[in-house]
Structures are given as structure tokens and as C-alpha cells.
């Protein structure tokens, strides 16, 4: 249960993470060529195979064309005008939290993510990514005792090359799509998680992404591997300063789950959304995909997308193992001039595979919200089941909600269900809540939070509270 008074106090604010950290950086000037990639690779002391992998990706990217099938609209991105690397110019690779620049620690503290282990949320380990690099990862020793590897991607490339080589690009191939190819060439950091056989990760893992530098793209890469009979719950949070220009965030996330393993991946995305005239904000163009390789494995995506000028992503599951399970729970809110084109793909390959899709879209002010999903049942997927529910809530006459559910069934034993609703907040609901003492803003916030309940229930406790607050902040001034 959350606190409504707190909700209303927060609702009075605007984007609260819009400030900037003043810190000396080591950045690349704008521009993208092989030299850029060599620089990034050298900066990270990468082995030759990693550099070659990047260069191969870059070669593919140059041959690809930017997609144009999406509903979201944005001006052409000049990829030569972006900077592809920006890192705090501090001591190289701090060995412990004591060596991390205090200015960075303060930044995360201000964001509500204290990195000192005694101050953190009990039971949550954090990897903090600032622009292009990971600045700290907490609770590594404790996790290490359980055999869990949780570190930055840069470190994983150096310390666990065999694991990275084996799984990187195995779920999202290098040339999967335009932005994944770009990411493969220039990715700078991200998180790596490895849960060995039979281990239930003793704490929640999370990565907190912060874009700080101007004109810089953030290209992070996350890879989570869960061996047989293991379990991990992972959460990512994102914020960025308020700026007039748009910034590109093109991440790739790959998940691999083996026999009976379960990965629960939650996102609370609150990148700067731009202003009410559509000026500024993050372009959040992300490829997220999980492979349920083992029997009875399970991957569950939960996303709460309230930020970004544009959100364009489809966290997906490839249900390869027999009886494997894929889930997608999504809340996407578009207010101001925000646009979202999001959904999922559930590819049923194994027998008796099951997937559930619950999508809640909220459109306010001039926001435009699209659910796009694919449920594909392959010929061998006997007894496959899917249930899809897409609900849209319109809070203004100038906002939009669209649903594109694609279904491809190639097995006659499959059962696919789809339900969709579009609704508005009724005057009767508002009057009822007003009669009980809730003003319009509190009433709308309560109704919207209720609308999202099925999705919020999937979030780890601490973050469910956070999500509630975020909805209220994002709806500020958007009603009517």
C-alpha cells in the first residue's frame, strides 16, 4: 500500500531528475567510424576478439537501413553528430566503493540510489552506470559467496571472456536490427549476470542507468544467464537530465534461461520525457529478448515506461524449451508529446509452451500510445497457449491509443486468446471519489494506479511504490 498524501505532494512536481552532475569527463567528439570503435575498445582494455566482434557489427550496420514501419515519428538522426563515449575522468577502474569519485556517489544518492552498502535498500545489489561506464557495483562479495557473478559488462569481457563469448549476441544476433547492430558496434557498458546451476540469487539485482553528458548516446548491453534450476530477479531504473536536444539510448538486453531456470526482469523507465511542446527528451530505442532454452524455464518481463520522448521496444521471449513460460506485463504512459510503440513477441517453439501478455497503455495530453505484439506458434509447438490482454485508458481528447496484435498460428492444437479494451475515466468515478474528498488530480492518479494494478503487482515491492509515484508525477497537469 502506498501513501496517497505522498503521492499528491509528488504530483505537484515536474520531472525531478532533470539536474546535471558537474564532473570532468573523458569524452569522444561527435562522429562514428572505425576509429571510434577502436577507441572505445582500447579504453576498456578489451581483448582482440571483442574488438573484431564490434568491427564486424559496424560493417553490418553500415549496410543496414533505419527501419520505418513504426508508428512513432522523429526527425532523422544524424549519427555523425552524436558522441559515442563519455566517462567520468576519474581514477581508472576503482577497486572498491572507497575509490569511487564522491561526486558520483552523491549523484546516485540524490537519485535515491545510495551505493554505500549499509545504506542501500536491504537485499538489493546495484550496478550504477553513468553515461558510458559502470561506476560501482555493490554487494559483490556477498553475491560471490553464492557463486553469482554480477559486474559491469566491461569487466565481464575482461574477467569472464568465455561466458561472454558464448552468450553475447546469442539471443539478439549482431545484425538483428538497425539499432542492435549499432549497439553491438559501440556499446560501452551495462551489466552482466551469471547465476550458476541450482542457485537462487540471494538478493534482487539492479542496474541504475544515468545519462548525464550532453549530445551523448547511451548504448548499454545487458546479459543475464541463468543455469539449470536457478532464479534471479533483476531490475533496471533510468533517468536523465532535462535538456532541449533529444538523446539516443539504444540498448540491447539478452536473457538466457536453462532447464527450470527463472529470470524476472523488471524495468522502471523514467528517462526525461521532453517538455509539453515536445522539445527534448530521450529516444529510447531498445532491443530486449529472452531465450527460454531449457525445459520448464521461465522469463518474465515487467516494464513501467513513463519517461522518454519516444519509447520503442518489444521485450520478447523465445519459448524453445518444452513447457517453458514467457510473460510480459507492461504499463506505458504517454503524456505531454510523448510517443510509445511497445509490446512483445512471444515465439512458441517447444511443446506446451505458455505465454501471457498484459499491456496497459495510458494516453494523456498529446501522448500517442501503441501496443504492437506478435504471438507466433511454430509447427512443433503442440499445446501452446497464449493469453493477451491489452487495455487502453485515454485521459484526453487529443491523445491516441492504438493496438496492433499480430497472431501467427501454425499448429492446430494451439490456443490463443486476445482481449482488448479502450476506456476513459468516467465522470461518475470522478464524482464518487470527489464526494469522498479526493480532488481531481488525486482521483485520476488513484484510478490510473488501479488500472495498472495487475502490472504493478508483478514488480518487486520497493519498486511498486516507486511506480505508483512515477505515474502521479507523469500525470501532473496532463488531465483534462
Amino acid at each position, binding site marked *: *500500500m502506498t501513501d*496517497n498524501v505522498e503521492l499528491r505532494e509528488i504530483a505537484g512536481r515536474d520531472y525531478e531528475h532533470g539536474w546535471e552532475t558537474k564532473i570532468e569527463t573523458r569524452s569522444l567528439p561527435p562522429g562514428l567510424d572505425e576509429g571510434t570503435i577502436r577507441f572505445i575498445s582500447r579504453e576498456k582494455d578489451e581483448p582482440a576478439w571483442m574488438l573484431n566482434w564490434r568491427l564486424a557489427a559496424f560493417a553490418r550496420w553500415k549496410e543496414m537501413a533505419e527501419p520505418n514501419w513504426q508508428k512513432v515519428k522523429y526527425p532523422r538522426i544524424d549519427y555523425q553528430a552524436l558522441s559515442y563515449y563519455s566517462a567520468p575522468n576519474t581514477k581508472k577502474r576503482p577497486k572498491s566503493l572507497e575509490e569511487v569519485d564522491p561526486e558520483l556517489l552523491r549523484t546516485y544518492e540524490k537519485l535515491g540510489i545510495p551505493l554505500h552498502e549499509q545504506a542501500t535498500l536491504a537485499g538489493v545489489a546495484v550496478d550504477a552506470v553513468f553515461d558510458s561506464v559502470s561506476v560501482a557495483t555493490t554487494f559483490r562479495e556477498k553475491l560471490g559467496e553464492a557463486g553469482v557473478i554480477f559486474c559491469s559488462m566491461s569487466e565481464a569481457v575482461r574477467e569472464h571472456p568465455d561466458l561472454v563469448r558464448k552468450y553475447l549476441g546469442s539471443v539478439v544476433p549482431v545484425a538483428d536490427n538497425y539499432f542492435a547492430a549499432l549497439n553491438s558496434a559501440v556499446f560501452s557498458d551495462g551489466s552482466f549476470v551469471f547465476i550458476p546451476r541450482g542457485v537462487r540469487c540471494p538478493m534482487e539485482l539492479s542496474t541504475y542507468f544515468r545519462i548525464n553528458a550532453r549530445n551523448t548516446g547511451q548504448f548499454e548491453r545487458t546479459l543475464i544467464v541463468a543455469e539449470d534450476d536457478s532464479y534471479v530477479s533483476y531490475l533496471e531504473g533510468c533517468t536523465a537530465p532535462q535538456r532541449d536536444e533529444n538523446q539516443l539510448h539504444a540498448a540491447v538486453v539478452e536473457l538466457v534461461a536453462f532447464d527450470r531456470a527463472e529470470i524476472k526482469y523488471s524495468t522502471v523507465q523514467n528517462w526525461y520525457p521532453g517538455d509539453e511542446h515536445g522539445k527534448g527528451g530521450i529516444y529510447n530505442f531498445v532491443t530486449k529478448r529472452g531465450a527460454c532454452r531449457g525445459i520448464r524455464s521461465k522469463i518474465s518481463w515487467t516494464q513501467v515506461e513513463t519517461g522518454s520522448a519516444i519509447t520503442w521496444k518489444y521485450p520478447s521471449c523465445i519459448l524453445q524449451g518444452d513447457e517453458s513460460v514467457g510473460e510480459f506485463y507492461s504499463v506505458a504512459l504517454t503524456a505531454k508529446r510523448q510517443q510509445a510503440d511497445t509490446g512483445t513477441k512471444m515465439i512458441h517453439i517447444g511443446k506446451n509452451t505458455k505465454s501471457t501478455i498484459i499491456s496497459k497503455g495510458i494516453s494523456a495530453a498529446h501522448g500517442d500510445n501503441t501496443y504492437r505484439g506478435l504471438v507466433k506458434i511454430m509447427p512443433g509447438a503442440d499445446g501452446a497457449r497464449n493469453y493477451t490482454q491489452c487495455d487502453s485508458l485515454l485521459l484526453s481528447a487529443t491523445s491516441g491509443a492504438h493496438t496492433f496484435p499480430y497472431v501467427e498460428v501454425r499448429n492446430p492444437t494451439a490456443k490463443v486468446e486476445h482481449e482488448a479494451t479502450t476506456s476513459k475515466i468516467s465522470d461518475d468515478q470522478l464524482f*464518487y471519489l470527489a464526494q469522498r474528498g479526493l480532488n481531481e488530480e488525486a482521483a485520476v492518479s*488513484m484510478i490510473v494506479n488501479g488500472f495498472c*494494478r495487475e502490472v504493478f503487482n508483478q514488480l518487486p515491492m520497493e519498486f511498486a511504490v516507486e511506480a505508483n509515484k512515477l505515474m502521479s508525477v507523469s500525470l501532473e497537469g496532463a488531465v483534462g
Partner: protein
Amino acid sequence: MNLLEIEDLKATIAGHEVLRGVNLVVPGGEVHAVMGPNGSGKSSLAHVLAGKPGYEVTSGKVRFMGQDLLALAPEERAWAGLFLAFQYPVAIPGVNNTYFLRSALNAHRKARGQDEIDSRDLLSKMRQIMKELGMDPKLAQRHVNDGFSGGEKKHNEVLQMSVLEPRFAILDETDSGLDIDALRMVAEGVNRLRSPERAFLVVTHYQRLLDYIIPDVVHVFAEGRIVKSGGKELALELESKGYGWLKEARP
């Protein structure tokens, strides 16, 4: 002290006149029943007092504990202590009943400059009320009116009223569609709140609720105004004679 004073109140909805000069004074400590045939304007009076959008007040005054009630927004009327038990309570899917009640109560408390209620205090208060009135304790954890039976919705209205402890409560046909046990529970909910500083306006079509909530005054509504007022025996008279004779008696 008079809690509510209504003077020559006229109101329209969609251009149609529904209140045609209502005069009513309700002192603290009293229960007033408003009876009358369907479409006589009883529920319109309840809605106008609570500030339901869509109604336009064309003339008249309403003073509520000395304040100009009609100048207040619906939520401000609630904060001032006016409660409406709805004839058709509205569902708020996904919102936990306890969370809803806590938010509502805290909104009232904030408006009065009081601190928020301690969650444990609220829960024990809710438990006690539900126990005293014989409600299903599961009601507290369900989503507001979502999938509730007609009876459960009315239970929920009484629960909210009991927690919010308004100075003036309007029950808009709360008895409609209730069986005798539910009716008793609603009445018990009202009776346990009766006190010298509180008053009730019980809008009802039937006399039977008034067997359990004994009114101090009974008003008969017809064509948008009060045509007759009297003691509790007036309700019984209406029960036996119907409303027809009043229309003939109308001035």
C-alpha cells in the same frame, strides 16, 4: 444549531427543472426522511447538495454549518463533513478498499489541518465497524465496489460513512434492493452514528427502512418540492394511502 438550511432551491439538469423551490431546515441531532414517488426530485436534491456535475442551480441558497455550500467544490463539501451514500456506488477497479478509505480519510484530515491517520489505527477501526455491523471482513481487501453484489456495495457505503464520520450524511435510496438483513445493517450503521452534532437525510421510496431508522421528521416530495412535512407517523400514512392523495392536496 441548524446544520443545513435550504431556502427556495431550484435546479435544472439538461434544461429540465428538477428542483422547484425546496425549503428545508435540518438541526443537529435529527434524522429527516425524504419520501416521494419516483421522479419527484428526491435523488436530485441529494445530488445537488453533494455537488454532482451536470446540475445547474438556478436560484436559492444552501447554508451548511454556516457556510455557503453551493460555492464549494464537491471535495470541499466532503471535507466540510457532507457525505452522500450513493444509490449506485461506482467501481474503481484495481484500487484496494482499505487504501481508498485511507486516502479519503487522510484527504479529510489534511483539509482540517490534522496529521495522517496511523494505518494500524485505521485498520483496527475498520475491523471493529465491520464486526459490529456483521460485514464480511474480506470487504476491506477487495477492489472498491468492483464485482460487488448490490448488497455489498451498500455495505461498503455504510463502512465508508462509519469511517469518515460525517457531520451530515445523505442516504440516497440506500435501502433499494436490499433484503431485510442488509436493511437492518444499514439502519444499524446510521443509528450507531446518531448524535446531537450529527444529522441525516434519508431519501427513500419505501416506509420499511423507517421501521429501523426512526425519523424525527418526514418530508414528502412531489414534482421537485416538499409538499408535506410531519412526524414519523406520516410515513405510515403514506404506506397505507400511497402518494395520490397528496397530489390532490397540493396547493
